[in-house]
């Protein structure tokens, strides 16, 4: 039992470290370190430009999309090398936030389902950061119940074989910056809901697409609504067979799970540091027994997540595939950060209400955590869906009884259709 690299891993790490050392935009390091909780901290520069520049630099040197094959702009690296790269890239990894969905989910889906010519054309500029991609899955009527989506694709009546898309997507991260997307649509409402879906890739500049940023509860706007009004796309942009959209979407979602190793923040190091320095009427906060008890509970969660990640990386290192047990990361991190933020504000007394970074303790980090953390518990699978995944796929418990099973989609009652 050890945390040591194998000799191959150590050699790879040394090469990666040297390259990053020589090429990273060091002038941004301090700003990036102040980021987190919904933004990468960059204020002095255009975050999209610097992200694209860093990605291009990496791509030119063979450090883009490590897990992709070389012919599509990747490096053909092993999963463990990808993890090591992430550890070495450190704060500069935040620059790539814009590309996470494209590289981690859209790209692999295109790779699995598109024809060779399409892959050669679309993937290299995605890898190099020239193009930004988004994933158009969730809808107002289909969040946790993704297969309940209603955006319709119907064959054009002119015999061209094209498809006409109408409907609305929501929670689309980065849509306002995206050049392309993958979109899942309903092509047959007369069969059971999972069976009538079809996936396409789409040019986000297509006529009829309207992107509207959503103002979030914390005041930021990372997500969008995307409206489709008679958007025409050729059949050549279809990914997988008509009616196989659910199967194609599983490729996308499986790839999401493989993105491990970075670890979700809980806010614990910040809270511990805060309590070490906070003077209260009775002395330092960290001397208070009730504070210590809470800190210890958060400490073992943060540590448990860290070492669960180490176990997953070890499995990768041995060539094993991480399983659904990794669902615990976001489940634990999200809830912990929310509780911890409330606790940190409580320690600040009435002053905890102030969120001005010039005045609030710790540059208002805990206030930002408080306002951002509800999203963590919802995005990419709610706490409840994650618990279902653990219960069903890890513990082997039965799925819920589905009243919409084997019912034609058009006959399923929804809140939107009365």
């Amino acid at each position, binding site marked *: 039992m050890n945390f040591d690299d194998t000799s191959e891993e150590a050699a790879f790490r040394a090469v990666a470290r040297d390259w990053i050392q020589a090429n990273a935009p060091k002038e941004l390091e301090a700003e990036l370190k102040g980021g987190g909780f919904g933004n990468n901290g960059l204020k002095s520069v255009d975050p999209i430009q610097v992200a694209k520049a860093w990605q291009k630099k990496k791509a030119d040197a063979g450090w883009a999309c490590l897990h992709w094959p070389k012919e599509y702009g990747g490096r053909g690296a092993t999963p463990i090398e990808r993890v090591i790269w992430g550890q070495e890239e450190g704060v500069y990894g935040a620059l790539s936030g814009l590309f996470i969905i494209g590289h981690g989910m859209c790209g692999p889906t295109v790779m699995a389902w598109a024809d060779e010519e399409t892959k050669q054309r679309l993937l290299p500029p995605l890898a190099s950061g020239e193009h930004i991609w988004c994933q158009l899955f969730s809808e107002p009527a289909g969040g946790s119940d993704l297969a309940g989506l209603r955006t319709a694709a119907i064959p054009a009546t002119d015999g061209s074989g094209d498809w006409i898309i109408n409907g609305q997507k929501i929670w689309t991260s980065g849509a306002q910056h995206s050049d392309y997307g993958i979109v899942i649509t309903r092509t047959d409402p007369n069969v059971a809901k999972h069976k009538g879906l079809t996936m396409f890739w789409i040019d986000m500049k297509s006529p009829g697409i309207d992107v509207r940023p959503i103002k979030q509860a914390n005041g930021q706007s990372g997500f969008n609504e995307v409206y489709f009004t008679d958007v025409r796309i050729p059949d050549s942009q279809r990914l997988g067979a008509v009616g196989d959209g659910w199967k194609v979407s599983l490729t996308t979602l499986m790839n999401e799970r493989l993105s491990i190793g970075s670890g979700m923040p809980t806010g614990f190091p910040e809270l511990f540091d805060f309590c070490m320095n906070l003077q209260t009427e009775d002395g330092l906060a*960290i001397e208070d*027994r009730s504070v210590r008890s809470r800190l210890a509970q958060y400490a*073992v969660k*943060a540590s448990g997540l860290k070492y669960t990640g180490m176990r997953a990386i070890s499995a990768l290192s041995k060539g094993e595939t991480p399983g659904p047990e990794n669902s615990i990361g976001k489940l634990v991190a999200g809830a912990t950060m929310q509780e911890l933020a409330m606790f940190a504000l409580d320690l600040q007394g009435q002053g905890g209400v102030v969120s001005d970074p010039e005045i609030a303790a710790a540059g208002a980090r805990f206030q930002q955590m408080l306002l951002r953390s509800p999203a963590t518990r919802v995005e990419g699978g709610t706490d409840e869906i994650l618990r279902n995944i*653990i219960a069903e796929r890890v513990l082997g418990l039965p799925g819920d009884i589905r009243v919409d099973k084997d019912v034609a989609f058009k006959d399923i009652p929804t809140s939107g259709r009365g």
Partner: protein
Amino acid sequence: MNFDFSDDQKQLRDQARRFLADRCSPAAVRAVLEGEQSFDAELWKGLAEMGFLGAAIPEAYGGVGLGHLELCVIAEELGRALAPVPMTSSIYQAAEALMLAGSEEQKQAWLPKLASGEAIGTMALAEGMGRATEKSIKATVSGGKLSGVKSPVADGDIADVAIVAAREAGKVSLYLVELSGPGVSRETLDSIDPTRGQAALTFKDAPAQLLGVAGDGWRLASEVLDHAAVLVAFEQVGGSDRALEMGRDYALDRMAFGRPIGSFQAVKHLLADMYVSATLARSNAYYGAWALSTGSAELPVAAATARVSATQSFQHCAKNNIQVHGGMGFTWAFDCHLFYRRSNGLALALGSQSTWEDLLIDRLRQRNDAPAAA
């Protein structure tokens, strides 16, 4: 990176599981719970013969000379099976204390007997209610004779030798006391977990031999407790997993409202949360195992982390296992209460949860770079 047990260690775990499936069924645990015996002497002998007691004891002292990682995987299986044996007292504490601080003569005298199961050891720190701290030690030693009352002492009713914290000229040291010798009387105590005995030991001028350096007793005791905390964490992790499995199996089997209760989200989420606790505890226990086996300076932090996490997990899994079982879980006939009893017994065994929470925070402060985590 290989933050996992080796294939050989996993084989040892399988071997221990098979052995315990055969020799430590729930019926065997119940025999101790309901009988007069405060431990399963046959099982203890069997564990010795398998080399499990001596796994981390060097061959020169009658052990098998494997190491602490091997002892961790054995501990996990003992925890799963709720083995009613004095492992915590005799191996995780007494043997560890002797290995850490015993003189050559003391090691020769006791380690082979502990490894063979011929003698049982224990550690006696607490003197009644409240946290055991250096200040709370009132037992005294003068001219090689120890006097005072230690209570509760785990396995104090069956132990042959105790490592006792006592004060000589004002300073706390640890002493070896033979419990069959003069000046020792013992009284068995009822406890929430009768599958691991408790006793009060009264010493009146009992012959006592210094263990380790005079005045170094509390530091040494803390170090022993850190070793034991990692090993007990593995028992707690094993117990967590088994309690979770029992709950899962019952939820799959039990029908209500025309369907398995495991298909209700309220029950599924209860079990999913138990899985989360058990997973975090396992990962933290591995951290403890790594620190213990490599002699890392991180051991104090790692042991407290493993301990706090494992205690939380086992209590959580054991209490919710009863909840999943509903009324049947509260019957004497179902095994749920055995896990509930053990989880709460172990939560206090090396000092209470709040004690370890305090230790963890102190140690994180000392390390002075906030965790590791995130």
